[in-house]
């Protein structure tokens, strides 16, 4: 599903992001955290692109970098062929309305002092100055209905709603500007199981009706299999496997993906039967040399400890792994 232009909707090129600095006058040196290392991804129009990985792997940092909440340290981000990471705040404005974000915790992402109507009108008041009151009201109602909320909730405050209702309000806020690209950072992990299904359905409906492209961040792999079209598995700030969702779940190639998939609790009574990884996730302040996964990888050898693997085609998936390349897995 490619859009009218040939360029992918969002193109992430060799992005690196580090936090912290070496200190300066009157400040002690902070350790440098390498949150993202040379990440390149391209998201096509209509994709539900999922980013998965464990806490600290950089998936949220990547999402925030893409949407412009913080600039990349190195690398470029292109939106439909235009480089956006280097734009000024003003130059970025037209892109901002096309890219919206849904946050994890609907208790923290909605301003408790604003009514639902105020929350939903705010983006329009910024980006569509001079929109008439009637048009505003109609838009709010249209979006509220489309996410399954009662438009009569308008004058109420966020604390009056349950978690699922709040998350639908924050989805509505993201949809107010008719965006093309929506970044959803763990949008359902704060919700109960029966409510997760409701919110996912709303997101899938919205995608169908509004032609959205999602960048969906989650640690829950069962959701990815259901919801996603493409998936990138991240480990310590590095993409280690990139594939169509179906291919990844049918035949994961990277040793980390295999371990991750085997750890999903299954309900079919097969018991716990996961691939054990040795050791702990190293800290991003002190990355291992070579492949970042090598200290925990059962297939690691001398080359893995020395060189950094890059994403390469391997049949149906792209993997960054020497062991896969050399046929040792």
């Amino acid at each position, binding site marked *: 599903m490619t859009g009218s232009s040939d360029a992918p909707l969002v193109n992430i090129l060799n992005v690196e992001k580090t936090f912290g600095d070496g200190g300066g006058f009157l400040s002690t040196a902070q350790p440098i955290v390498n949150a993202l290392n040379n990440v390149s991804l391209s998201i096509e129009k209509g994709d539900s692109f999922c980013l998965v990985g464990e806490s600290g792997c950089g998936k949220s940092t990547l999402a925030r970098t893409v949407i412009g909440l913080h600039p990349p340290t190195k690398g470029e981000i292109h939106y439909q062929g235009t480089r956006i990471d280097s734009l000024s705040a003003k130059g970025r404005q037209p892109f901002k309305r096309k890219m919206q974000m849904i946050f994890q915790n609907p208790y923290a992402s909605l301003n408790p002092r604003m009514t639902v109507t105020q929350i939903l009108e705010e983006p329009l008041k910024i980006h569509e100055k001079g929109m008439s009151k009637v048009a505003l009201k109609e838009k709010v109602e249209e979006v509220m209905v489309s996410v399954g909320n009662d438009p009569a909730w308008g004058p109420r405050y966020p604390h009056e709603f349950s978690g699922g209702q709040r998350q639908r309000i924050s989805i509505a806020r993201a949809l107010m500007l008719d965006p093309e690209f929506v970044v959803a950072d763990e949008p359902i992990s704060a919700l109960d199981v029966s409510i997760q*299904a409701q919110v996912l359905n709303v997101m899938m409906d919205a995608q169908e009706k509004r032609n959205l492209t999602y960048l969906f961040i989650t640690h829950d792999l069962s959701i990815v299999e259901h919801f996603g079209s493409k998936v990138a598995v991240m480990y310590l700030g590095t993409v280690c496997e990139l594939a169509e969702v179906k291919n990844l779940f049918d035949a994961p190639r990277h040793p980390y993906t295999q371990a991750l998939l085997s750890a999903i*609790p299954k309900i*079919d009574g097969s018991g716990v039967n996961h691939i054990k990884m040795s050791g702990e996730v190293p800290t991003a302040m002190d990355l291992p040399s070579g492949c970042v996964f090598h200290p925990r990888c059962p297939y690691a050898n001398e080359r893995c400890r020395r060189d950094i693997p890059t994403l390469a085609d391997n049949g149906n998936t792209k993997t960054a792994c020497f062991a896969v390349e050399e046929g040792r897995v």
Partner: protein
Amino acid sequence: MALLEVKDLEVEFPLGRVTLQAIRKVSFSLEKGERLGIVGESGAGKSVAAFSILNLLSRPGRISGGEVLFEGRDISKLDNRQMRSIRGNQISMIFQDPMMTLNPVLTVATQLIECLKAHRKISDKEAWDISISKLKEVMIPSAEERMESYPHELSGGMRQRVVIAMALLTDPEIIIADEPTTALDVTIQAEIMVLMLELCKSNNVGLILITHDLAVVSQVTERILVMYAGRVVEEGRTQEVITNPKHPYTRGLLKALPQENTAGSRLNQIRGSMPSLNALPQGCAFNPRCEYANKECSQLVPKLEGHKGHSAACIHTKEIPPFNSELGKV
């Protein structure tokens, strides 16, 4: 006689003019070495039910009815001093967030030894040795060095291992674990669950596992209680409940999980959300969300009934078609 028997437990929270009933007539039992799962969504009362066993209810919550029989003795009416000989000794507890459980300013050693010496008259040296052996039991590498660590120096998984070691220190009869892996990553969760399962089996310790994750429960427990709005709505052997749930709520929960070969389609959802405790509907609390509800459902509260140890609190169990949705892998 069961090791632990909870009979018609009622817990209420008097809040000024209103009194909220968090738990209504909840009964269950646990045999020695048995693993029981309590499942439900937030607000269902599963944590309150477990906390009330050890009288850990936060004020103003109180047990307003029923009894908690441990080894035949009602422990719900014990005073704090008597309770202390059981709590953390014969019945211990693992909480959700290990960072909140462990004291950030004390080393692992201090905390483990303190816990042991509170229950037993032993020397520091003996306490140190027992602590080390428990740390080894929960597979903590270089246990001697870790004894001197502070909680912040350990990863989330290691911290939860320390908490499990602490729960095992006094060789309890029962461990109550309240969402022990919810704060952890999926690979760590798998490790911790395997560990808990093995430890409970090898030490013949009973486990009450409280969680919202049906998949985790199905892997670890032998029996399962499903709670909704303060009541038990279904009870039975885990495999039986998972493969052939009788109560519409349990069925709804299972159907809401993404299943094999349904990728891209809409998930089955339970309409609405759990009612708040101060606005419970008349009759069956689930009736406003239930696809089978009729007039009778909004009039009387259904009893937990069934046979062969699998029971459900629903008057429609006979009419509901068998649950044959294919719950394969997630």
